[in-house]
């Protein structure tokens, strides 16, 4: 029975949440084929310690590749490693579509001469084919794509947050995956720069996101959004494209079809009118709150709860209320 291969992303020694999402997606697809879920776990010395967590999420085998040259993202050696393993009769290779996954997946596909399904939000087996959904036209249309099996595996990149990391514990077998060449002899050299604030929660991981738009009127007023995020204690700060284009916030904070796609438990939209490009990035949130002075703003059409009002009045009141509520415990 064909098995499914996935790739586990480790950054700064930490296993990324997207890796567990990919492991769970691989488990479900492997079950559909009656095969096993295998994972490539590569990184610096000690990375093999993450195999257990992947086993908890359904991985039958972890192929561990520990090498100093894998401590940093190493796209050339890593894509070679994944492609080499993928040549062992797998039905599919699933790669979580983080910034690095989006770089890795097409490289692996091209190395294998395989077809690719990108930024997939659902995936199923249909006989010899894979059927996937993928948002197109800035999220205004959903395409259902069919990849007809060829001689090799299909490569699939998964949209972050679209697949749930679900416990499916099994005892993971550990095998060694040795790179075929010298992984330090590569042309593309990558060095991760420390993030400005290492405590900062990432948009993909945060259960709450507070996001600001043009309604805040000036860059310095983002303090309102930051204060509300701080009150929640487990929130990340996002922004609209208008705001990042104007340089109020870094581009990496942009939520939307062309930026980050997020699905937190709670999304608070502050002074955001709700352009379709933004909604495409946050409509998968479980609960959406909108605060905007214009009652006709399209954001209210997707918000579970809306407050019409001046953000400069409502947001500080909400910040105080959340603080008080958390103080109660």
């Amino acid at each position, binding site marked *: 029975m064909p098995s499914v291969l996935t790739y586990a992303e480790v950054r700064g020694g930490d296993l990324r949440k997207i890796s567990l999402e990919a492991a769970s997606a691989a488990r479900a697809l492997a079950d559909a084929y009656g095969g096993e879920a295998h994972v490539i776990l590569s990184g610096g010395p000690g990375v093999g310690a993450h195999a257990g967590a992947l086993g908890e999420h359904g991985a039958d085998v972890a192929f561990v590749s520990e090498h100093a040259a894998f401590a*940093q*993202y190493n796209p*050339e050696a890593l894509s070679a490693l994944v492609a080499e393993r993928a040549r062992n009769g797998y039905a599919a290779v699933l790669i979580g579509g*983080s*910034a690095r996954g*989006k*770089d890795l997946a*097409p*490289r692996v*596909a*091209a190395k294998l001469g395989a*077809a*690719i399904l*990108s930024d997939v939000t659902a995936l199923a087996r249909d006989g010899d084919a894979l059927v996937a959904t*993928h*948002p197109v*036209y800035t999220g*205004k*249309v959903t*395409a*259902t*794509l*069919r990849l*007809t099996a*060829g001689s090799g595996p299909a490569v699939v990149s998964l949209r972050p947050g679209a697949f749930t990391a679900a416990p499916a514990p099994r005892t993971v077998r550990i095998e060694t995956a040795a790179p075929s060449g010298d992984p330090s002899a590569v*042309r*593309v*050299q990558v*060095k*991760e*720069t420390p*993030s400005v604030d290492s405590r900062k929660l990432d948009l*993909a991981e945060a259960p709450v996101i507070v996001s600001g738009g043009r309604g805040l009127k000036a860059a310095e007023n983002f303090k309102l959004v930051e204060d509300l995020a701080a009150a929640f204690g487990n929130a990340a700060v996002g922004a609209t494209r208008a705001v990042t*284009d104007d340089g109020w916030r*870094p*581009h*990496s904070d*942009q939520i939307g*079809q*062309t930026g*980050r796609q997020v699905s937190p*438990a*709670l999304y608070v939209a502050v002074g955001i009118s709700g*352009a379709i*490009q933004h909604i495409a990035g946050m409509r998968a949130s479980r*609960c*959406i709150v909108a605060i905007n002075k214009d009652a006709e703003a399209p954001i*209210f*059409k997707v918000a*579970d*709860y*809306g*407050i019409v*009002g*001046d953000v400069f009045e*409502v947001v*500080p*009141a*909400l910040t105080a*209320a959340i603080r008080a509520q958390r103080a109660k415990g």
Partner: protein
Amino acid sequence: MDVKFRIAASGNAVDETGLKWDMSDFDGYAVEIALQMIEKLGTGEVVVISLGPDAAQEVLRKALSMGATRAVHLKSDTVPFDSAAIATALAAELKDGGYDLIMFGKMAIDSASGAIGAMVGEMLGLPTVHGCATLEVANGKGFARRELEGGAEEVTFPLPAVVTIDEGIARPRYPSLKGIMAAKKKPMESKPAQLGAVRVTVDAMALPAERAAGRIIGEGAAAVPELVRLLQTEAKVL
């Protein structure tokens, strides 16, 4: 892209009636940064390539009016939803071009796959960097910054290379009247695209389900206590 899409009668495409073609945002950034590089160097040329039906020539003409030197149209009346098939055609065209740097937008705004640039890089066997938020070249080397979730990374690579361009790198210039006039005389070569095998097909296109209609719970700061109550007891997210 503030248009309302309709699904075509076939059920597996959008109805293109009345849609106007334009350069994809990320490709605009790539054209702009390429022009800036050539201007800074004071030498060299910017060649623009597009694969698609005849309408692709309008987009190429726009790049020429921005300042590109010449254009190549790889003609294909239909464009498959298959990144590998398209990348194969582009790689075949680019293979013997002798380019120092091959740039793509990070992704197309319509198909939103973001895979073609890196696939072409691999197919050509060239150093490849996907999603450059900054890009500089000097002395045969490239330097780029890529944004990650909650971080960034610095990438160095030798030229020739293939890169894809992220947002925020540069604002594309508007074509000047002089540029538009000059573009009419610039060379545009059109030839059939040599697509690879098409393995990905579209079963259906559909408009995504609307979220259940929400409600406006009140006005101003007075509505905050009710919001907190609903978040706690109804949505259970606090």
